[in-house]
């Protein structure tokens, strides 16, 4: 009766969810990720000028934030920059991904490395480099809106498009080359093949890449801080300057709005992706 010595269990060997340490890991990760965000959101409704003690529910700080012209202007700047940066980085990133996937050329490995380097370069270095670059080339400042945002937008494009390239490149790795041959065999020209087969295939990667580029641009602080002038303040930079005076629920409110927008966009993107998936799968 060898087996009488063994402690018997009612769970299968891979039913880890029943183990205590598994539940602990799940719980802790949630606390680490969401406790600060939750407190931020809760205290945006706090009826107190100070952010420490709860004194009752109010939405007046949302009103106050809405009526803060500086904050709204910064928010409009952020959205404008994010919009243009997303469009350009998505197109540029997709083109780089196609180039790397489709063609062989000398020093391709070096080029591929150079393309992904901005992902790992410390942001502070990028920021200083951008500042030095724009002052060296004498980039005009004080232009009319939205051209006064051009320097920040260019800086944002330069750190966003490698992310798009990586995502689209990963998607392309699964492309069946016979699809291209089949399209050409059926009479499609290069352009028709690209429009009818290639772009629909890349679409999930393009959506995910664009979304990432948008959020990267919207919440970037370090690089923006170094490339923005006094008249080109973005939302993160504005929030930072407000914090320097005092941490008020108004800042919480503005941050909560930023979180809400990011969440909304992510949901929309996931839903779009899901819908194309369902159309394929249904």
């Amino acid at each position, binding site marked *: 009766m060898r087996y009488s010595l063994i402690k018997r269990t009612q769970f299968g060997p891979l039913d880890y969810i029943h183990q205590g340490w598994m539940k602990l890991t799940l719980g802790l990760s949630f606390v680490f990720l969401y406790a600060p965000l939750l407190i931020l959101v809760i205290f945006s409704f706090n009826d107190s000028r100070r952010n420490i003690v709860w004194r009752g529910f109010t939405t007046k700080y949302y009103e106050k934030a809405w009526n803060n012209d500086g904050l709204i202007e910064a928010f409009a700047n952020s959205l404008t920059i994010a919009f243009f940066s997303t469009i350009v980085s998505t197109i540029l990133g997709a083109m780089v991904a196609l180039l790397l996937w489709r063609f062989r050329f000398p020093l391709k490995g070096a080029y591929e490395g150079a393309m992904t380097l901005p992902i790992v370069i410390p942001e502070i270095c990028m920021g200083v480099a951008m500042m030095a670059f724009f002052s060296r080339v004498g980039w005009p400042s004080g232009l009319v809106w939205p051209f006064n945002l051009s320097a920040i937008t260019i800086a944002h494009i330069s750190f966003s498009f490698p992310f798009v390239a990586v995502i689209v490149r990963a998607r392309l790795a699964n492309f069946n080359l016979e699809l291209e*041959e*089949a*399209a*050409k*065999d*059926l009479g499609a*020209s290069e352009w028709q093949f690209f429009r*009818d087969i290639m772009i629909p295939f890349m679409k999930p990667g393009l959506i995910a890449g664009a979304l990432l580029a948008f959020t990267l641009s919207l919440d970037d602080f370090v690089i923006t801080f170094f490339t923005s002038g006094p008249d080109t303040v973005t939302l993160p930079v504005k929030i930072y300057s407000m914090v320097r005076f005092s941490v008020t629920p108004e800042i919480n409110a503005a941050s909560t709005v930023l979180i809400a927008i990011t969440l909304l966009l992510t949901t929309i993107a996931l839903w779009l992706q899901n819908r194309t998936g369902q159309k394929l799968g249904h």
Partner: protein
Amino acid sequence: MNQSSKTVIEISRVSKRFGNVVAVDDNSLVIHEGEFFALLGPSGCGKTTLLRMLAGLEVPTEGSILIDGEDMQGVPPNHRPINMVFQSYAVFPHMTVFENVGYGLKVTGVPVPALRDAVMTALDQVQLGDYQDRMPDQLSGGQKQRVALARALVKKPKVLLLDEPLSALDAKLREAMQLELVKLQNTVGITFVIVTHDQDEALSMADRIAVINEGRIEQIAEPRAIYEFPANRFVADFIGKMNVFDAKATSEGDRIAIEASDVGSFTVSHREDMRPDQINAVAIRPEKTRLTSQPPDNSLFSAEARIVNIAYHGKETAIFVEIGQHTELACAVQNTSRSQQLPEIGDICWVSWKADDVLLLE
């Protein structure tokens, strides 16, 4: 069946090299209109490269390809009167069955009503009439293949190319599709060129077969001729099973006397394309041998043998016998009755064959 003698494809002295590797080596080939033609060979023999050169997906290093009398040099795939069914089927994953089949017409600007009629006709031809709104991932492998077929047929090509079309299907479906492809080809009357490594497929479907090895065409002939009269040792060995023995041959009047070391000697009819001193081996197919417990009459060549192994295959049994000390021979016995008695390992028997069923090899 319905082929005329009109040439639709003329390949002359075509070679294809990838760097130092010669994939296709100086081949010439003529394919007639309405023919079901098979390119047969082991994997890596260059048959697919040859097919891809017809489609324009590869460019020959040397030689010329004429399709319907026109030189195809420099003509890109989208301007060739040829369509292809790809090995992976290459059905566009984001398009419905209808959109897939209609794609080749849409890109060339066929108006919608004509496109709709043509697509529905093509879908009916491959029995997918009710599947027009399905997405590819809702289809089985066999159905995807039909979509790929319809998509190519709807273009009404001069020649339809099929790259290993049945290799991904299971055995039962493969057999059904073999028959269906032949039927379809008879209906549409288009020349089919199929690439396959499966000899059964080639033998059962094709009007003519080109057997290819290491980039060179070894023999072009009808299936029966390929099987019964293989041109050389490679074809004999590649198609079906074959027992090959070393042998010496000498002229003996109007016949040839064969002396095969362990097996014995016999005479066969004279072959005009081969001198006796060129013959170094003889071969006999397993199903052309007979096993008997008593010596057969003198009209057959026979040798005493010992049974060394038996493999039961259901419809037939492969019996391996040893003649003398070193020569092993496979015999196929049809299991024509349930009550049929099979010999046992170690039994002594007589193996015999008609002398003229023996194949002479260089």
